[in-house]
């Protein structure tokens, strides 16, 4: 195993995209409405909630991993679902990292939408749901940025993926955890190669999203 590839790099890459992509989508589905609600409504404790959200930008992935690990271990409260050491656990752990990022940037984006537009939208008769949608649409560039940053965080992290995935060949091995393995085994050139693949993949995703933006599909 010194020079050989004992596992399929393509499969590892696809799994990375699947895990981090799912976490980004799930995290955005929760984070965007959450951020819009916090940003647009007035309520007691709004400032506190915003501060907590921004603080969670720096939530360490390894703690997210630890939490999911603890909860879903067989010995833990939700162990009966048996999802520890599966991609599902990895998705959940990464989703916890994506949510505050997407929510926080969405809060900032919707707050910056011109107050006059918010008033106009209301005065034209939009109810709460319609008004929120319209403001999100006005803040769309910011919201998409939030999603992209969320994806960046998910695809780049290794702590949570390693802890709750177990780096199992063919099942939970992603690019970041594979790099850890190769380094540990002393295959430095191979680890660097995987690192390059990771960068290319992340770059590719962002370029693709920019491309969609330019064609106004996003």
């Amino acid at each position: 195993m010194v020079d050989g590839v004992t596992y399929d790099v393509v499969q590892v890459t696809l799994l990375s995209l699947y895990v981090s992509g799912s976490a980004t989508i799930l995290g955005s589905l929760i984070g965007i409405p959450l951020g819009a609600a916090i940003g647009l409504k007035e309520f007691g404790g709004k400032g506190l909630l915003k501060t907590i959200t921004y603080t969670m930008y720096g939530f360490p992935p390894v703690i997210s991993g630890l939490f999911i690990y603890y909860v879903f271990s067989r010995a833990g409260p939700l162990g009966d679902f048996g999802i520890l050491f599966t991609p599902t656990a990895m998705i959940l752990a990464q989703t916890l990292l994506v949510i505050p990022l997407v929510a926080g940037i969405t809060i900032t984006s919707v707050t910056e939408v011109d107050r006059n537009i918010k008033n106009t939208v209301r005065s034209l008769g939009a109810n709460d749901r319609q008004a929120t949608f319209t403001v999100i649409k006005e803040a769309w560039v910011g919201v998409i940025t939030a999603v992209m940053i969320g994806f960046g965080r998910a695809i780049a992290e290794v702590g949570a993926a390693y802890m709750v995935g177990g780096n199992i060949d063919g099942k939970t091995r992603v690019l970041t955890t594979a790099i850890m393995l190769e380094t540990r085994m002393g295959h430095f050139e191979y680890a660097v190669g995987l690192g390059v693949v990771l960068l290319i993949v992340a770059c590719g995703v962002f370029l693709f999203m920019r491309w969609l933006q330019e064609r106004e599909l996003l």
Partner: protein
Amino acid sequence: MKDKSPYIGVIVLTIVMMLLIGTIAMQPGKQRLLLATTTSTQDSGLLDHILPNFESKFNCIVDVIAVGSGQAIQLGKNGDADVLLVHSPASEKQFVKDGYSTSRTLVCYNQFIIIGPSADPAGITQAANATDAFMRIYQNGTDRKAVFVSRGDASGTDTKEKTIWIKAKLNVVTFSNTWYLSTGQGMGAVLDITEQQIDKGYTLSDQATYYTRKATGIIPHLEILNQGDPFLYNQYSVIPVNPAKWPNVNATLAMDFVNWITSPDIQSMIADYTVGGQKLFIPNAGPGSIAENHLMVSHHRAAVAIRID
């Protein structure tokens, strides 16, 4: 915004589908066995060598989780693994005693080796045994002439290292971190760190990790300076998790694994496995094997009787 509704529906469906794929499609109907083992075991490549045999014979997939010994045993205690393949006899015996397993079966053993710089400032090539070698490292360490790099992670290797210090009647807790580096890292990283000490670094290593790294040329300053003391034998055992404690484990397949890995065919596969041209493992499945006796002897008495080649 009347266009929003169909998009939301599509997205929600996609999410549900993807989460389902995550749990279901990754298991194409075959049985799975979750094997918890140590990083050094996985890194030796032994499992890549023998597991395909098991997978095809029993038409299943073995999911290998490689962590430190301490965590591997914890996985067994928490019911997160079906079977363990580890090398920490003391913890294993306790594991069985506490009822987490009904059996502990020997599989094979390899040897730890004491690694150091070719210059060998502590002169351990002349040491009579491992304990003597460690004593010399200690003396030179406190004299600033040597550095010892330790795993520091309660792994099998780390546990063995600690017992040697005890045997030498030295208290690890008193060691100064100017010469005793407790790294909390895996074997590969520890070898790299030892290499960084150029002409002063010593460590205890398993053979496989050493030979692998030596072959890729990244530890040019390190040589095997002391080996062969039976006290350095490293016993691997296979331990199925007790289904009475954790009904969710795949107990049948786990027992199949125990029987398979101790069967004569696989035992000779283990014997034939080489890394960098070197044979690493000596199979010793079966009751009352000589190696086990050796370990018992050297643990309880400081005398070494027989050497096994």
